C-alpha cells in the first residue's frame, strides 16, 4: 500500500509540474490543481497509512489513524479549491485585459477556429 501511495503522489506531482510549465493559463490551472492533490495526499500520508481505523473514539477500536494530518489536510482541501477559483478568475481577467490566454500575455491572437485547427 505504501508503495502504491508513494508512486501515485509522484505521478500526480510530475503531471502537475509538467502542466504548470505550459504556456497557456488553462493547463497551468489544471496543473496547480493536480499538484495540490499530490501535496494533500503527501501531507495526509505523513501520519502513516492505516486501513479500517478511523479516528473516531469507540470502545471497540484497537488502534486509530493519526487525526492531526487529517485535520490539517481537510482545511487544505478547501483552501486549495479557493486558490483554484482565484487563479482561474485571474486567468479570465488576463484574457479580458490582454485579449489572449498566454501566461505572459504576449501570445499571438488566434480566433477560436484557428485554435481548433490543432
Amino acid at each position, binding site marked *: 500500500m505504501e508503495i502504491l501511495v508513494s508512486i501515485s503522489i509522484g505521478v500526480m506531482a510530475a503531471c502537475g509540474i509538467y502542466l504548470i510549465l505550459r504556456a497557456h493559463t*488553462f493547463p497551468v490551472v489544471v496543473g496547480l490543481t493536480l499538484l495540490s492533490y499530490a501535496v494533500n495526499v503527501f501531507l495526509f500520508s505523513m501520519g502513516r497509512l492505516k486501513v479500517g481505523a478511523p479516528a473516531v473514539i469507540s470502545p471497540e477500536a484497537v488502534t486509530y489513524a493519526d487525526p492531526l494530518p*487529517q485535520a490539517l489536510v481537510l482545511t487544505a482541501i478547501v483552501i486549495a479549491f479557493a486558490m483554484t477559483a482565484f487563479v482561474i478568475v485571474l486567468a479570465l481577467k488576463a484574457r479580458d485585459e490582454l485579449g489572449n490566454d498566454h501566461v505572459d500575455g504576449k501570445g499571438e491572437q488566434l480566433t477560436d477556429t484557428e485554435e481548433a485547427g490543432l
Partner: protein
Amino acid sequence: MLFWTLTAAVLVTVTGFLSLDAPLFGDRAIMEFDPVALFAFAGLMLASILTVVLHRKRMISMILLGVVGLLISLGFAKLSAPDLALTQLSVEIVTVVLIMLALFFLPQYTPLTSSRWKQTRDAIVAAVIGLGVTLLTLAVLTRDLSPISDYFLKNSVSGGGGTNVVNVILVDFRGFDTLGEIVALSLAGLGVFSMLQRMSLHASLNDHAGRPWNVDERSLILQSVARLLFPLMLLFAAFVFLRGHNLPGGGFIAGLIASLAIVLQYLANGITWMSSRIRTNMHLVIAIGLAFAIGTGMVSIFLGYPFMTSAFTYLKWPGVGKFEVASAMMFDLGVFLAVVGATVMILVELGKINVHKVATGDSKKGES
C-alpha cells in the same frame, strides 16, 4: 541558466543522500495491498497521465481531473479518513463546476506553442521531481513515527466532548488555525467577486466545429429533479453538520453540501429565476459566519479564559434523549456559513458573466 540551476539542485540532493550512512528506506513493515486498491491507484495514475497527454483538449482534460479527484476521495475512504473522503468528494464536484464555467470563456483547445525540445525538457524536469517526491514519501513511510496525536486521541472526549477526533481538532484544539483558514477562504471569495466586477468576456457562440451551442434555456428533467432534491440536500447538510462532533461530518463538509444544493438550483433554473428568490447577499452570509466564529472565541475572553476556550455540557431532551451542547458547535456554524457564502459567491459570480454576455449579445469586449 535554468539547466545549471536544475543540475545543481539534483547534484546537491544526490550527494547529500550518498554522503550519509543512513539507508534511503527504513525498516518499518509495509502493508500488503489488495487487488481493489491496486486497481484504484492504477486508475488514479492513468487518469493523471491522461490529463497531461490530452491537456490540449481542455474539456477532456478537465473531466479526467475530476476522475483523479474522485479516486483520491476513494483512497481517503480506504485509508481510514472518512472526513477527508467526504470533503474531497464535495470539493471535487464544486471544482469541476467552477472549471467548466471558466472554460466557457476560454478557448476550448490549447494551441501548440512549445517546441518538441521544450516539451522534452519540461517532461524530464517533471519526471525528476516526481521521482524525488516518490522516494521522499517512501523514505518517510518506511520509518516509524512517534506522533503527538496521542494527546488529541486521549483528550478528545474529556476535553472537547466529541468522539470524532478530526472534527474536535478542527473546531476545538486547533480552532485558531481553522479561523485563519475560513478567513483565507472568505478573502478568496471576495477577491473573486471584486475581480469579476464589470468584466465582460468574449465567448464564442458556437463550438470549435462551428456548431452553435444549444439554445434551449434549460433541461426540464434536471429542473424537476433539482427542485425535489433541494430540501433533501439541505436536510442532509443539517444532518452532517449535527453529527460532525461525534461521527464523520462537520461544518466544512455540511457547508460544501449546502452550497452544492444552492449551486444545483442555479444550474437547473438559471441565474434570473434564482436571484429573484434568493435575495440574501452572500457577503452578508460570509460576514455572519466570520462573526459567529470570532464571537464564539471572544465569549471566553469576557468570561476570563484565553481566546477560544471551549465548553460543553450534556442536555436531556424528553423524547430525543441525551445529547451534547458544545460552544464549539457555534464555531462550527460560523465555519459552515463562511464556506457556504464563499463557495456560492465564487460560482454564482462566475455564472453571472454569462448573463451579461447573452444580454448584450456582443462577441468582443465592450468596456474595459
